[in-house]
């Protein structure tokens, strides 16, 4: 099996991708949106020509709003981000903008800082909880797996992989944010959590095959080495892994091209995550079992 024979290459490749992702997060950061920090985001549409961002900024500068960020949004709208506004301040923005142009407010969201920090906490807990529950479930589902690797080690392997699976799309998003000015919103957390579920599903299919082949080899006493069994399991499930992620990728591409604006960034993060996750379950998860088996046998 190609991947098993060249697994050190794939480990290095993974390391490189991971380093790039962590580098992107470290260099550009993941700016948290109003769902986390609190604040106001409003979209205002222009019936005729949309003025420059600088013009809008000047119009707003007379109001005492603290730091204001104005960005173009779509073809005929602007997105304005500020601290949490009072209804009066909100009204004053609308008045200021409609002085020289025909504007309509398309959307308005204001989140208090307390609610935001609560959501941040919950999001972190949710990610940790999902990972923990998945490990426990896998350790349980694989408790009767034949040697050389015990069930809990499958669980640990999955965690190592899942951690990487969410770092890569997060790194991509850091770069994406840097160039587009998007922000981390609650849908980003949704994307990461669904990716956790999806990637685990992907690995389970491969592990399930390893489990089946191990049992068969034990039954028929073929004395096939563990490495060969893992390799065979990967190649037997290869078409399925690729085809499944292909169908999900097709659905996501449809969402990105034709779907609603509000779910576009979400679909993009999912897309990167699904591709990275498929690669990692094929090239990393099962091959990772081999060094674990060696290490356990040495002791």
């Amino acid at each position: 099996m190609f991947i098993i024979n060249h697994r050190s290459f794939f480990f290095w490749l993974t390391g490189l991708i991971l380093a790039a992702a962590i580098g992107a997060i470290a260099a550009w950061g993941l700016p948290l949106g109003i769902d986390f920090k609190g604040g106001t985001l409003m979209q205002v549409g222009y019936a005729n020509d949309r003025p420059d961002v600088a013009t809008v900024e000047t119009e707003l500068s007379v109001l005492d709003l603290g730091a204001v960020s104005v960005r173009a949004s779509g073809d005929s709208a602007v997105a304005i981000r500020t601290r949490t506004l009072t209804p009066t301040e909100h009204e004053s923005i609308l008045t200021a903008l409609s002085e020289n142009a025909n504007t309509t407010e398309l959307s308005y969201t204001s989140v208090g800082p307390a609610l935001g920090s609560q959501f941040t906490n919950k999001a972190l807990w949710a990610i940790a909880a999902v990972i923990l529950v998945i490990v426990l479930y896998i350790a349980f589902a694989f408790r009767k797996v034949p040697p050389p690797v015990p069930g809990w080690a499958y669980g640990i392997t999955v965690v190592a992989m899942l951690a990487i699976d969410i770092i890569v799309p997060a790194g991509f998003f850091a770069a994406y944010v840097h160039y587009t000015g998007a922000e981390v919103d609650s849908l980003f957390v949704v994307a990461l959590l669904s990716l956790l579920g999806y990637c685990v599903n992907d690995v389970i299919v491969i592990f399930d095959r390893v489990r089946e082949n191990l049992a068969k080899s034990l039954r028929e006493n073929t004395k096939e080495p563990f490495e060969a069994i893992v390799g065979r399991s990967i190649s037997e499930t290869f078409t399925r892994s690729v085809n499944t992620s292909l169908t999900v990728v097709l659905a996501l591409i449809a969402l990105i091209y034709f779907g609603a604006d509000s779910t576009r960034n979400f679909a993009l993060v999912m897309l990167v995550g699904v591709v990275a996750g498929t690669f990692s379950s094929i090239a990393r998860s099962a091959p990772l079992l081999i060094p674990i088996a060696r290490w356990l046998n040495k002791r």
Partner: protein
Amino acid sequence: MTRYRVFAVIALLAGFFLAYFAWTTEANPLSQYRFKFGLDLAGGTELIYKADMSGTPEADRKDALAALQGVIERRVNLFGVAEPLVQTEEESTLAGITEDRLIVDLPGVTDINAAIAALGATPTLDFRLIGTADVGTSTQTVYLPTGLTGRYVAGATLGFGSGATSGLTSPEVILNFNDEGAQLFEKITSENIGKQLAIFLDGQPISAPVIQETIPGGKATITGKFTATEARDLVRNLNFGALPVPIELESSSAVGPTLGGKAIADGVTAGIIGFAIIAIFMVAWYRLPGLIAAVALAEYLVFMLAVIKVIPITLTASGIAGLIISVGMAVDANILIFERTKEELRKGEDSREAVKVGFARAWTAIRDGHLTMIISGIILFWLGTSIVQGFALVFVLGVLASFISAVSLSRVFLLAIVPEKGQGIWKFLLISGFHKH
């Protein structure tokens, strides 16, 4: 074989029925089963208030929150909204503090500031006894809460009494307590004759009459420095309901109708195109099973739409995304089974047996995979905000339905078609991909 054919026909008929149901209920504007769209799609305003329960004893908080909900509902109805929704949410944070929230959804309302003003104008009213307390060397006036609040006010009327100082009639507000409030008021007045009972409106004392005698009957009169307009407004607001506890606006959002309408259209387009591409891929790669999977997926989809309509689940942009992604995932179980079937065929099994073994072998992987996805979906739902829950609910339902559609529908259809001892053309139809056979 006959058994499977009967099942297959029933499943197909059920699919047509569900599709017919989804179509006709949507075409009929009066049907109660039309899709319910969230505010991000239909346009509207959502206001989230935090209820300040610091002055309410632990035991009374549930009642107070329910009373608050009732008052706000009355208030919202007066605002003239088609299908308003007022929900309460009780949440324990990790620090062990319980937070009570009120979530007000106003579909179709886009003037968020007018909505805030209309709801926020509702007064909070409470009665406090004036006493004194020694703080260090000085004596200070303190206000002792009596537990009698706007919660117990059944209604208010406007009256004019004779002004004490000017001789002119001055407007006064007459409160009518409900039974519970009347008893409480009688008890307070009987126990505190000679003391001052201050009436607080929105946290400010507006008058502090001295209790002359026990007042039975549950009527109290507030005379203060009202103008006629102020008194009339207060009566109106009290009749809409005084708030039992103070509330604070925590988060607000509004979406205009144009943005929402576009999001629905985009979501539908993405769904149709996504489904079509997946179906084409499945047929091209998996041939007969692919076609059957496409039919099973279509059934899966109409089933999901019917469930969403019947429960009903409010669709949001994130919910539609969840539905589209779950279609992609629903294919997975089919792919697992077909790949397995193919392997069995290569080993030389006859077609029908290969299908049966393929399903049996794929089962453990399908079970484990779907369970972990459902777990992450449930945790997502717990995360809470409406946008996240919109996705999680559809996602979990979608994974469940995909599970059923793959292990039952695809199987029944395949076994209904593939004959015993299927050789030649059947093997070609079942084997797939671009491998050498």
